[in-house]
């Protein structure tokens, strides 16, 4: 990691700020910790962090609103922390533009892993090569070719679009709505059943076992994620 990588921590609990700060600093990140939304929005502008860890339960403003405001002018990766573990809560945060979602309480190892994924994803998006590789899976975006090992996989146009979308956001959960809107268009954003059928087909063609997936993971009630490395 570059030593200049800056992380903004937003949480109203001093205890949580404290352990996040010491742990991430030990990992070599530069930390800015604030306790409310107003300070957070100010810090995003002034400090220009590389990643934000955001608690949704803030005293002055709903965390979802913070995400939306940040997203109007920035692609800053956001990892959300919340005590809410229900799907609608996750979906709302991800739809608003969060990159990842962690339910309190969590271990610091898991958080570090998520932070790394989110940072890498950001780097990847900046310089996504013409060919995406994940283990033996290779997606050639230019030639519209998908191969596993030596054998080519025939995908329909929609299946390819779906896989491309997941690959572009590899490691990140894409919500049903995000996928449907991107691949099928705004009018279909509620047709989750439709999406399930396509994912089932895609997994079949990629010989991916839904029970222990090698490529496409299901986030129940939320969406899908193409595994990071």
């Amino acid at each position, binding site marked *: 990691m570059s030593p200049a990588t800056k992380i903004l921590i937003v949480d109203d609990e001093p205890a949580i700020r404290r352990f996040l700060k*010491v742990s991430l600093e030990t990992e070599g990140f530069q930390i800015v910790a604030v306790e409310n939304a107003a300070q957070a929005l100010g810090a995003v502008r002034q400090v220009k962090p590389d990643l934000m860890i955001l608690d949704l339960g803030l*005293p002055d403003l709903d965390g979802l609103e913070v995400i939306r405001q940040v997203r109007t002018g920035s692609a800053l990766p956001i990892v959300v922390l919340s005590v809410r573990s229900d799907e609608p809560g996750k979906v709302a945060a991800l739809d608003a533009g969060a990159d990842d979602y962690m339910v*309190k*309480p969590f*271990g610091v190892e898991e958080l570090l892993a998520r932070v790394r994924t989110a940072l890498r994803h950001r780097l990847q998006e900046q310089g996504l090569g013409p060919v995406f590789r994940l283990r033996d899976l290779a997606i050639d975006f230019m030639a519209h070719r998908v191969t596993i090992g030596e054998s080519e996989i025939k995908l329909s146009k929609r299946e390819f679009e779906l896989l491309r979308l997941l690959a572009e956001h590899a490691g990140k959960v894409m919500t049903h709505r995000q996928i449907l809107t991107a691949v099928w268009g705004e009018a279909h954003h509620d047709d989750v059943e439709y999406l399930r059928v396509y994912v089932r087909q895609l997994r079949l063609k990629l010989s991916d076992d839904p029970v222990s997936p090698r490529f496409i993971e299901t986030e129940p009630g939320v969406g899908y994620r193409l595994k990071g490395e």
Partner: protein
Amino acid sequence: MPATQPADLDTTRPSPEALLASAATDHRGRLKIFLGAAPGVGKTYEMLTAGRARRKEGVDVVIGIAETHKRAETEALLEGFEIIPRRKVAYRDSTLDEMDIDAILARKPRLVLVDELAHTNAPGSRHEKRYQDVEELLSAGIDVYSTLNIQHLESLNDVVAQITTVRVRETLPDQVIDTADEVELIDLTPKDLIQRLAEGKIYVPEVAQRALNHYFSEGNLTALRELALRRTAQRVDDQMLTYMQAHAIPGPWAAGERILVCVNEHPSATGLIRYARRAADRLQARWVALYVETPRYHQLSEGERDRVAQTLRLAERLGATAVTLPGRDIADGLLDYARANNITQIIIGKSRRTRWFELLHGSVVDALVRRSGNIGIQVLTTEAVEGEPGSRSGSAPRPPLSIAPYFVATILTGIVTGVGYVFDQQIDLPNISMIFIPVVLYSAIRHGLWPALWATMLSTVAYNFFFLAPLYTLTIENPQNVVALVFLLLVAFIASQLAAQSRAQAEAARRQAASTAALYGFSRKIAGIGNMDDLLWAVAHQIALMLKAHVVLLLSDGDDLQVRVGYPPEDELDEADLAAAKWSWSRGQPAGRSSDTLPGARRLFLPLQTERGLVGVMGLDRPVDNRGEGTLLSPDERRLLDALADQAAVAIERITLAAGIDEAKVTGETERLRSALLTSISHDLKTPLASIIGSITSLRKFWSNFDLSTRDELLGTVQDEAERLTRFVGNVLDMTRLEARSVTPQLFPADVAEMLGIVAGDVKRALPMLRLSVEVQAGLPAALMDAHLFRQVMFNLLDNAAKYAPAESAVRICARATAQGVAIEVLDEGPGIPPGDLDRVFDKFFRVQVGDRRRAGTGLGLSICKGFVEAMDGSIVAENRTDRPGALFRVTLKAAPLTQVSHEPSDQDPDRR
């Protein structure tokens, strides 16, 4: 009829009615009828044979009822069938066997064989007729095979009676055969049938001989056979038509014929109806039975009005549309309706009236024929369409003849004659006749036509006797006087007619107004009622008063129908009534007394129906003073009752809906509380846990990377958060104890200053950000308290202050004596409490909305404070500070005498933990 009607354009599209007709048969069982021309042709035999064949195919077939009439070959066929045992019905000293419909419904076979479709059930059965039982089986999805003789069909009833001179009493509506899915004609030539009869295969020999001489004559059988063949052929036509229409096959069907049959109160009208049905069948025409309700309707006896209603009902059963139209003149009413509805033929019975009557009143038939234009008129003699024999003799009695009006008329005529006699010299002879006119008019207006005619007759005689020479005889000398007398007679007669007619109209208007007023009054009385019990009582009471009847109302109580109210009060129904009520409830149709279903019940039950569905059932019964069985309600009353039932149903539904809304509100509130609890607990449990787990996992991963002070800092976090969690769990437990009422305070007098010192020590570590100051009034008496509960209360109040007041702001505790005892106030420098929320801050899970999610708070703290303070016989209130923004919580405890008082507050008491 022009063959090319616009309707022809539609034949390329399936007609919705035809599709509907085939769709309606989808969920029902299928009915197959084995139709025969006469007994003994082998219908039962054929039915059983067909049943056996189905059984062989593996279909679940049972016998509901089979009459073998001890015919050997038929009985042999019963073997191997499952036969549902018959139900024994006690009737007058004997027992009758009836088909056990409930047993069949419970057994639920695929197909049931039911002999003799036209059979009439024993009194007290669920349905009057067996075909109604079959209807219920069909709607339960069970297929039925049944048998029927042609003479039982309603529309053929009088034709058969004419052929055979035997009138069949057991009839069934033609619709049954029209809607049957299959009809198989069991045909046997008359010769073969007579042969079988002679061989004793049908009846025992002596009966057979009698039958041969009468019913089973070859002529009769041939005619009956022809009827059966024609009826079956016509049904096939109908099916073909339905099929062709459903599949949009254009074809030459008779289009546009519409028949109108004119109904009157005479018994012969039923014959007219049957004739019309046959005509309509032949022409494949729709038909309408019309009754024109002229003012004369109100002069008809109840029996005659009933007969009009029955005739119209019969027409409906035979497939007609029954219409009643108000009108002044029958011919006008008929023709207006006919023109408006494209009627092509009018069928009317020939009047039984004398020529004289027709000359005076005009004849409807003549008027019709004169003005009908291109509408065909068929006039039938009453002999051709004779109705039920004997029903004329059974015609309902006129209203009891009252003598009083005639008596009055006589007296008045007498008085007027006396007056005329006195003034005989002063008044011209012709003028004297005038003095009789008022008497005639009075009688006509007051008492109607007949008393007026009586007065007319008396007047004429009196005039002649007392005033026309020769006096005191009924002979007339001067021809001029004859003219005068005739004029008197004419004037009196016409005047009485006119007056009587206007009286009848006034009477009709009065009835109309009375029933409108009754309806209006009823709706006004029940409109404002807001609770169900009051409403039901008002409905029962009002209807009971209006119709002078006993009323019960039944509403569904889960699955069961329960009597909710009765007027006069009634809680229980006997079994027959309950069965009728349930039937009415399950079918949404009237049942019980004077209805088609379960007529043996004491009451008539009407469904209370709104657009959304059934809301209940109303039972009605009259004390046995008037008329006796059969006519529970006159048609007028029945109409009024129907209107009242509709209004009652709407009112009941309104209350049910309102109750539903209330319930939803309560449920919503409970739901809100529950989700508040969940949010609160998940937040308050998880936040400290998140810090603890986060800190510990950091420590484990980076133990060697962290320096000593970092390790100590994180370990301190773990301890603080664990303690916070402990307090939270303690709060939840306290709340549970309070709710379980297991808080038993140990009340002792305690020195308030000392206790506050301990409290100050409690918060010093847990809430280090709090700048606390304690002021205790000098000479403060001791307070009655439980030390543990008091510490908890104060801690929660201070914790609350710490949450809402800005960090580093001052919190004061003031203790002083009041009239109620000892008051301990906690004052913070926060934003205060919105005035509207002051009462609610002690509610469980209530949080003042300042910012969305304030620092961890259970929403339990203040609620526990209130519970504990009250357990200590004290009180707690929330206020806003008057000197500056901020909240004030005042705990008041009872004062207790204490010898030793007041030492300076000590907030340095670290040992007291």
